[in-house]
């Protein structure tokens, strides 16, 4: 169901919309003020009622995550905002940081208070220079107003926000790798447990949240948790509110659009994205960043034994509302809600090769299945594309990917294996075609060289 909203994007495209004045004029920082007047438990409860599923890709309920933080003790707590946004096809967080940075700063005050932190670190990927500048600008403005500092809004909750520049590795978006990087260590995911809530930044209790997850909090406290949750068509599935949807690739109007949760892919592509580029047929959609399996229009929803899915059963997956659980239950993955649309001019084999290269290049290399498996898959695809692979080698792709799956330290491994499995399963004929063509070419070359023992006679001459 398409329902456009403007909670985060009202000032998008407005000159100076990122400054504090227009933000405050439209009610900005009132939510933070309100939250600081509540108890910690009330703030967490309000967030829970909003059913904000983590916007970073994993879709974990934000209020629930906050409730895992230990009660304030002798150790400082930290809020860390994940602004690494490295998932291919995902570009929503930077729009917030560039065009609505105060929402993030205000959200930091709310989030930090909820988890008992006095400091929030925003870890921004290196390349996002404008984002960093706008965030620092917003921080300075908020400090000047006293919203950040010793006594925000006259409350005794000292609060500071810092921007930290990452070094631009995709893996530093994984929350524990991010924490290592923040501490100045090699950006490698940590083993869990202990989870960040017990042992996070600098060994202290920490919550890591995505930019959008935090930036939506002022809205939650303005509208009210439950009311905001009900904006969503998937409120009953515990997936509330509104969010940013990105669409890129072969659409006529690529970009970031804000809408209530419950939007379908078809609406995202055709209504918001303006339809497929050149009006060609759709090859497939990667719904939420490259780690999600590619979805085809002809795939049909079929979830048995759950009332809530009855309206969608029998329909194309493109008509299934985009939600964490709707996708999970149908074997798909929502990810970051930024869809990559591929029309039929795309060669799925080359697309898979391209992704495999990305994952080989970005694996931190810590654990064996991911380090070696990603490289192996890339090699296999390279050979397929070059026409050098045998059918036997094509048949190794799913074996390697299946042995990466679940066997690694962090979710990168699954994120690399899942799309590979989807590509070979859904486009097997195209892969086979490459293999067959390559074989035929090899045979033809051999035939052109004369009889099969030509090579042998050359070898014996050399001897």
């Amino acid at each position: 169901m398409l329902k456009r909203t403007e909670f985060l994007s009202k000032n998008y495209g407005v000159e100076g919309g990122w400054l504090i004045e227009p933000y405050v004029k439209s009610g900005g920082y009132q939510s933070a003020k309100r939250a600081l007047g509540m108890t910690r438990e009330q703030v967490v409860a309000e967030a829970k009622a909003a059913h904000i599923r983590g916007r970073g890709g994993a879709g974990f309920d934000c209020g629930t995550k906050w409730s895992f933080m230990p009660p304030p003790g002798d150790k400082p707590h930290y809020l860390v905002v994940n602004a690494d946004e490295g998932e291919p096809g995902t570009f929503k967080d930077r729009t917030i940081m560039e065009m609505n940075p105060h929402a993030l700063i205000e959200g930091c005050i709310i989030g930090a208070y909820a988890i008992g932190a006095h400091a929030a670190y925003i870890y921004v990927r290196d390349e996002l220079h404008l984002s960093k500048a706008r965030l620092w600008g917003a921080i300075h403005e908020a400090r000047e107003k006293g919203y950040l500092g010793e006594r925000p809004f006259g409350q005794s909750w000292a609060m500071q926000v810092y921007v930290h520049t990452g070094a631009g590795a995709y893996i530093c978006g994984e929350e524990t790798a991010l924490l290592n990087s923040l501490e100045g260590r090699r950006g490698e995911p940590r083993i869990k447990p202990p989870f960040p809530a017990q042992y996070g930044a600098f060994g202290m209790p920490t919550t890591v949240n995505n930019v959008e997850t935090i930036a939506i909090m002022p809205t939650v406290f303005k509208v009210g948790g439950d009311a905001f949750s009900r904006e969503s068509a998937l409120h009953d599935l515990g997936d509330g509110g509104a969010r940013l949807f990105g669409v890129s690739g072969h659409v006529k109007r690529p970009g970031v659009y804000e809408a209530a949760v419950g939007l379908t892919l078809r609406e995202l592509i055709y209504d918001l994205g303006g339809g497929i580029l050149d009006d060609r047929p759709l090859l497939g959609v990667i719904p939420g960043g490259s780690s999600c399996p590619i979805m085809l229009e002809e795939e049909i929803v079929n979830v048995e034994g759950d009332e809530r899915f009855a309206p969608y059963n029998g329909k194309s997956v493109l008509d299934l509302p985009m939600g964490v659980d709707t996708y999970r239950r149908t074997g798909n993955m929502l990810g970051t809600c930024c869809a990559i649309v591929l029309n039929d001019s795309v060669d799925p084999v080359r697309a898979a090769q391209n992704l495999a290269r990305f994952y080989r290049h970005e694996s931190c290399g810590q654990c064996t299945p991911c380090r070696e498996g990603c490289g192996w898959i890339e090699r296999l695809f390279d050979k397929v594309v070059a026409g050098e692979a045998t059918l036997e080698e094509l048949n190794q792709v799913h074996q390697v990917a299946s042995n990466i799956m679940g066997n690694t330290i962090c979710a990168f491994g699954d994120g690399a294996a899942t799309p590979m499995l989807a590509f070979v399963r859904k486009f097997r004929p195209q892969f086979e075609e490459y293999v067959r063509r390559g074989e035929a070419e090899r045979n033809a070359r051999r035939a052109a060289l004369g009889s099969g023992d030509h090579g042998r006679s050359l070898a014996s001459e050399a001897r």
Partner: protein
Amino acid sequence: MPSFKLDELEIPFEPGDTVIQAAHRVGVDIPHYCWHPGLSVAANCRMCLVEVAPPPGRPAMMLDVLRQDPTTGEYVPAKKPKLQPACQLKAAEGMDVRSQSSPHVAEARGAVQEMLLLNHPVDCPICDQAGECRLQDYWLEHQGTRKRMRDEVIHKPKAQVFGPTIVYDAERCIICTRCVRFCEEVAKDPVLDVRERGNLNEIVVSPGRQLDHGYTLMTEFVCPVGALTAVDFRFKARVWFLRSVRSVCQGCATGCNAFLDYDPRNQTLYRHRPRENLQVNQYWMCDHGMLDYRRAHEDRFVSAYVGEEEVTLEAGVNAAASALREVEPERLAVVLSAQHSNEDNFALLTLARDYLGTGQLFITNKPHGEADGILRHADKNPNTLGVEQLCGTTPPRPLQDLLAAIEAGQITHVLALSSVAPCEVEALQRLKRLVLITPFDGPLAGYADVLLPAATWAESTGTFVNFKGMAQESERAIRPEADARPAWKLIGALGRALGYAIDWQRLSDVRLAMATDPGAVVAPPPSARMAPVGAAE
């Protein structure tokens, strides 16, 4: 004690144990590369994956994978349970862990093994690790198939000199980070780290540094494959020709438990490496100790001397006897040695007290040196406490006192064990006779009138008492070279030449005599937690 199930075994555990740790304690091995009982958990190799049955009534966490129908070639969506690394998984009461018995585990381990060898050079024929390499052992146990990737492997730097003792081969490295963690956690010098990313990563030394702390050889020892090799051992021997004995390091009073590896064919020592003892050295040894084995072949006396002249052992013993016969007991001093075993010192003490009748007892030792707060003790002698215990209520006096007594003309004859000294020893010049029993050259040797060649610790079994008072046995590795004999044996022969009824033919004879003396401790037989030659921890 709580317990969990591992395949069909019941494994007891202590609270806080991981599954692999508890299993290791009772001698059950879950395959692993990166885990080491003395290091933090990295859980990066993924060789130790196990399947854990979900609690009753709860579904197992399943993952979507793909299989292929063998006949049609069609892909078939399938599920597999999420496996857990046993090195990271905390043991819990009643847990049902499947290691050998799970087909999913077998598949995962086979896959990990294949991936570890994917870009591996497999240069086993020229690799020092061959024969005690985890990759070789686990290939046999968990993979057993030929390599499917037939393309050129990724090439990386080979023969990188990390420092004076260690050479690194990045192609053989499996990035288990044991060496990195060892340097940081045990040696307290975080000089190694990983660089690059993905399958291009490799271990490097910090810029501007060398791998040159006091425990560099341990990095080679903890390396489960042939990526780190020791300059000292490189290309010297194939491990399957070596045999091992359980020795005690002679480097200092810590008394690290070790294996002494030797080639029985040429009676030569090749390596000294740690043997697990949680009370003494845990899993470690220092570089000094690991290289100290070389001393057994250096600066040796392997025949008897009278003055400058090399003589037969019999002639040497007789010359020693006549030298000692000419003196009254008051003018004779006997010097025990903190460098020698309880057995050797007991023999000398017995000869001195019971037969020669002298109460002039002294002890000599190597000078003290640095302690490092990790393993190395300032006392550089392996048996200081043992000698003190032997002497009971009348402890031996330091060598300096003897020198003073010589200067004062009170002592004219000395019978001494070992040639070490804690100080300058010119005063020995004034002696009429010095009879020295020693394996090695040293400060005292230059003053010896008669010298009898003793066996080194590597050539004889003996008891050493470390600074904590733990009596530990060090076993004989090789045969005594040429005329060298265990010191207790030479002392026995000397006693007989002097006409005393001393009949020690075998070590057990000495130990039988020691049994009647409460100060004379004999160590129980040593433990051997680790395989003698073969894969380390």
